[in-house]
């Protein structure tokens, strides 16, 4: 690793990059970073962005597995709806989906009597749940397609061998099919997680206070334009770095046996 950096050419590049950073820091306005109010907001924002990412990736993958399975091996009455769902999610912009979910559903509330006294009201009034729901559906749509390929890609011989051994269908799924399919998607999962992270700032459009919303607040309060955006870029770069490192570590831990 270090050897790759210690080439004169790269040292010059690092030097220039550092110089640019210092210039940004010296000539930019960063005093807002010292205000406790904003520090607290930034911490909340980063926390919301990261937890939104983790929750929606987990929920989305949980939905993607049955979606992929239905498309790869399900009867037509399961395969067709699953296909339709993936097509709908993949064919329309996430921003539009979020608007439809949050404001579209919200516009129906005044017409439903008693909704504000109902059990679900705390969820229905909170944008956070709509963001979680919308982003999870998005992961499900994209990963459902990926899982379809992964399920189909598991060698037939493996499944036939298990069947021949008299393995019950459910055990076969949990022990053979699913682990091998997941193993196939693992190398792409890091990239998909980065893509999902890049989708999270859209939730600010439906009033969720993620890190993007926080930078907007700083921009609005201080009328500083570029510095909060630069901070944002740095935050997202760091999160990407963490994701890449995490998956690199994960991939090394899981032994590669299948071809």
């Amino acid at each position, binding site marked *: 690793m270090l050897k790759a950096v210690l080439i004169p050419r790269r040292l010059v*590049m690092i030097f220039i990059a550092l110089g640019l950073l210092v210039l940004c820091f010296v000539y930019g306005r960063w005093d807002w970073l010292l205000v406790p109010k904003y520090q607290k907001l930034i911490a909340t924002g980063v926390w919301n962005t990261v937890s939104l990412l983790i929750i929606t990736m987990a929920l989305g993958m949980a939905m993607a597995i049955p979606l992929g399975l239905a498309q790869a091996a399900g009867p037509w009455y399961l395969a067709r709806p699953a296909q339709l769902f993936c097509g709908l999610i*993949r064919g329309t912009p996430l921003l539009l989906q979020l608007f*439809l979910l949050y404001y579209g559903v919200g516009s*129906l509330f005044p017409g439903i009597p008693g909704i504000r006294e109902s059990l679900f009201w705390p969820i229905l009034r909170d944008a956070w749940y709509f963001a979680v729901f919308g982003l999870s559906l998005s992961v499900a749509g994209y990963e459902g397609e990926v899982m379809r390929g992964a399920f189909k890609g598991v060698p037939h011989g493996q499944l036939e061998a298990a069947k021949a051994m008299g393995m019950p269908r459910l055990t076969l799924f949990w022990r053979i099919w699913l682990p091998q399919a997941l193993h196939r998607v693992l190398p792409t999962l890091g990239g998909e997680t980065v893509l999902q992270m890049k989708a999270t700032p859209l939730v600010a459009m439906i009033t969720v206070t993620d890190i993007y919303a926080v930078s907007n607040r700083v921009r609005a309060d201080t009328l500083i334009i570029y510095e909060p*955006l630069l901070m944002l870029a740095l935050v997202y770069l760091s999160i990407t770095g963490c994701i890449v490192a995490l998956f690199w570590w994960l991939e090394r831990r899981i032994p590669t046996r299948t071809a």
Partner: protein
Amino acid sequence: MQSLGVLGASTLDLLAFAPPGWGATLLRGLWNSVLIAVGAYGLGLGIGVAGAYGKLYGSPWVKDLLAIYTTLVRAVPELILILILYFAVTDAVNQMIMAFGGGRIEINGVVAGIAVLGVVQGAYSTEVLRGAILAVPAGQIEAARAMGMPAGLLARRITLPLMLSYAIPGLANLWLTVTKDTALLAVVGFAELTQATRQAASTTKAFFTFYAAAGVLYLILSIASTFLFSRAEKWARRGQRRTGD
């Protein structure tokens, strides 16, 4: 129940092409979206071809700089890149011109949109095309070199046609991405389809009708382009099938 009524009888009136229907406004938005998508896709492809060649055959400096470009663009959300490029780049262009003693120029929304999304697309195109060029059998290129074919002709006659079949699936995905990314320009207020829909919805309060209608328009665009790209892939693979027979 009033809001449910909006869904029923008056939906067609709201979507009619002639005012007071908003159909024409939505279609204008769609046209803007397609225009920007085509422009950004083209620009992205241009950057991609140059970037892929640079990454494969460029000097070490070029390779490293391109690596920085593709990594940065692919690690930061498009929304933030759009804001940074939209404000910072137009600002920089103006500052530069003013430094030369000129006055401000106005950069129109379509051009700014194309430039911004094109730069983002360029990073992804670079990777797709680089992969595709690498997939071209080395023997083909070596054979052409051995025959003394000049580099430009080699690229035009051998590498580009051969890599096209490998590149098309990736490029098809990028096209679908850019059509959806145009929606992000709603955030800077550009009147593409999502922004037009948002305005129609908030003026008429028929949120469901308009967001659903826009969804259908995006879907039609996506289905039509998927069809065209699969045709294109078949066309690009025509030579390979014959050799396979």
